[in-house]
């Protein structure tokens, strides 16, 4: 009678471990890898100790020089650049949709049945996404020369990958029922797309457009640093002339536009979707 109860309590007394030994070794190895990577980075990164030492002082000095912002400088030069930035962002988004819609149709496996074309479209979309907008801007400055045209195309080419990928995903999620019904009625391809597919992807489409426009407003603010137009040019000039009060004005203007764009996008999205 007493023997089994002792054996039972011994089994209960066995210490419970959350992870198996293999899992514990795995976790330990992951932590080791993280720490080793950080130690390697800290030891080999070229940080000049003098710079690190007086960094807080220098930051404080910069902020003092920025105060008060030279608000008189806002009109007309900063204002014009700001409007140009908004034009670049909007027109870039528009161009990106013109390029992305055919690519998305080619990339969606239920719309285009040819796997070679699917793969080609996916490759183009991925390569557009993996080059940053500032690098696209450098390329288009070399192609079109400095100015807003380069910025617009940089924004457009960078957005194509993002927009095309999301649109293709939305296309692949459509219900084939309406399409089949239209096909049975003998509708041509254009009508199939317009009346069978478009009503289904419309909410996703507007969502993507608004989301990307919001991102593009932020991105187009920095394109000017490589000469691709917009408010970045004014910012770069002010920094190069050490006019810190003007820099503060430009930064405040960018901040205001970014916040306003975010509010506008959230409002429209709440109403549309």
């Amino acid at each position: 009678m007493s023997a089994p109860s002792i054996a039972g309590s011994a089994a209960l007394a066995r210490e419970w471990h959350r992870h198996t030994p293999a899992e514990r070794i795995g976790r330990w190895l992951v932590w080791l890898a993280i720490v080793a990577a950080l130690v390697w980075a800290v030891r080999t990164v070229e940080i000049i100790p003098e710079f690190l030492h007086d960094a807080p002082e220098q930051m404080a000095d910069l902020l003092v020089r920025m105060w008060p912002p030279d608000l008189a400088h806002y009109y007309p030069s900063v204002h014009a650049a700001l409007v140009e930035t908004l034009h670049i962002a909007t027109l870039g988004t528009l161009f990106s949709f013109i390029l992305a819609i055919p690519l998305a149709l080619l990339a969606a496996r239920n719309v285009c049945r040819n796997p070679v074309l699917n793969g080609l479209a996916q490759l183009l979309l991925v390569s557009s996404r993996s080059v940053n907008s500032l690098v696209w801007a450098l390329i288009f400055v070399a192609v079109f020369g400095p100015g807003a045209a380069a910025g617009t195309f940089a924004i457009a080419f960078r957005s194509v990958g993002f927009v095309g990928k999301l649109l293709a995903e939305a296309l692949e999620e459509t219900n084939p029922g309406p399409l089949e019904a239209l096909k049975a009625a003998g509708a041509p391809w254009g009508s199939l797309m317009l009346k069978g597919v478009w009503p289904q992807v419309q909410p996703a489409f507007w969502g993507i457009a608004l989301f990307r426009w919001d991102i593009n407003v932020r991105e187009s603010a920095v394109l000017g640093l490589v000469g691709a137009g917009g408010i970045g040019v004014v910012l770069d000039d002010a920094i190069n002339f050490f006019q810190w009060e003007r820099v503060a004005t430009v930064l405040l203007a960018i901040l205001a536009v970014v916040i306003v764009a975010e509010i506008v996008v959230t409002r429209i999205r709440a109403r549309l979707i």
Partner: protein
Amino acid sequence: MSATANQAARQAFAPNWAARAGLVALALYAVYAMAQLDITWARLATGFGEAGRFLARMWPPNFARWELLVEGLLESIQIALLSSALGILLSLPLGLMAARNLSPAVLAMPTRAFVALCRSLHYVIVAILFVKAIGFGALAGVAALTIASMGFIAKLFAEAIEEISMKQVEAIRATGAGLGAVLLYGVLPQVASRFTGFCLYQLDSNLRNSTLVGIVGAGGIGGTLFAAFKRFDYDFVAAILLSIIALIFLAEVVSGRIRAAMR
């Protein structure tokens, strides 16, 4: 009136005049904006001619100066690692302070505003300011990307914490546990897997961004890229671009593997 309504009902696909007007307005805006930005067909035509010459000069990519290339890439990786680590460490308290279910509104509101401020300035602009304030080099890049990381993951952390179930927290509190124990046993187990996901995502995006901050002098491969562009060394530019794309692609594959293993 009823006659027109009937007619509209009978037409299976009635024309949507509002949408058509919207399209026309968009087209008019495009023409206006193109005129404002001085984008003309003549300019585009010469541009595409230039693009052909540009691409011809980029080919074949010149990997002769691979030492410079590897040095820049390694520095970019270092910047990404350090800024991710610092950003995550700083985001842990910030995320907690910004979560409205665990911290008082007096603390949550200013923290949320600070995090939003970190997020709303583009990281390249932050990088310029740091380059001017603390000098050229990797330090400025690390500082700028840390700020950007804080803006993104502190917000995601706060949202994850706000979505937890308060039952566990209350149970731990009922045992008389202090703040540390409540966080460790009531909050952390509920959010740990999502936090790991965010950290991985941030490391990935910091790696992309660290290849870029060099354009404004904040260290990494971007500086090499910008210098090559300025010297019209387009074959070296092609080599740098290809290696950046390879690096980012590799990082995406690795993080995809890790994500699949965690599930």
